[in-house]
């Protein structure tokens, strides 16, 4: 799975997520990516998220919208993503990752799996990671 979130100079946010799904999956199995609120969500009033991980688990907690819900409660992108991933792990045992950008331009790349390649650019500064 791959994904991107962004905020532009007009303050609009957007998200995009794309995947091949799970290896050897049943024909017709659709995971979280195509489901709005699970594979991604974007709302100028809050921010944008894109998710990756075990699709059925992500769908059960509606991970993308859940992350933004925590931001609506005042949490930072990092705290919100961590909270959402923790509840996914405790409720349904699934692991995954979330990238987030907030309406004020704060961002996070958070994951509960062993790794997730990520990269971010803000103020012309590139940051990236994998562990």
């Amino acid at each position, binding site marked *: *799975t*791959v*994904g*991107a*979130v*962004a*905020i*532009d*100079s*007009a*303050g*609009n*946010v*957007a*998200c*995009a997520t*794309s*995947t*091949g*799904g*799970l*290896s*050897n999956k049943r*024909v*017709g*199995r*659709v995971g979280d*990516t*195509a*489901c*709005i609120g699970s*594979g*991604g969500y974007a*709302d*100028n*009033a809050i*921010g*944008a998220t894109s998710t*990756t*991980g*075990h699709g059925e688990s992500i769908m059960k907690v509606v991970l993308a919208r859940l992350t933004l819900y925590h931001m609506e409660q005042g949490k930072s992108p990092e705290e919100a993503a961590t909270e959402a991933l923790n509840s996914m792990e405790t409720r349904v045992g*699934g692991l*995954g*990752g979330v*990238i*987030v*950008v907030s309406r004020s331009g704060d961002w996070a*790349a958070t*994951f509960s*799996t*062993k790794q*997730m*390649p*990520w*990269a*971010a*650019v803000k103020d012309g500064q*590139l940051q*990236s990671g*994998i562990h």
Partner: protein
Amino acid sequence: MKPVIVVHGGAGRIFKEREDGSRSGVTRAALKGYGILKQGGSALDAVEEAVVLMEDDPHFNAGCGSVLNEKGEVEMDAIIMDGKNLSSGAVSAVKCIANPIKLARLVMEKTDHMLLTDQGALAFARAMGVPEVPGEKLITERSLERWKKNLEADSNPQEFQKDLG
């Protein structure tokens, strides 16, 4: 507003020999998207182009390089969403399309629907003039090996992938 972009290449386990390729792939995607934002482009264009770059990069499980379904085919899902007006478009179970994210954006912009699937999505792609590619062009050596390995009697792909995406 100062523009920002963040991209990911999928949560899970990245084997050592693939770390460099994955890391340079997400870096190129972020810089591509940021270039669009710096020139006053929209967040929507930036996220679409960043994902297109990663769909075309065989290091990632999307587009070319996708994992294979039980029949050994590439079958993909994608979503795009605009925070300005909460509009969104998605496709699921599509085959023979190089960039499903582009098709998802067409669903958002050219239909009143949120999600088109399988044969319907393919018919829509044809109507929109989106070129089809032979399915084999999206299959990489690595995804084929992994598919075969998962077919072996003692493998358990569901268990192995319970935390992958």
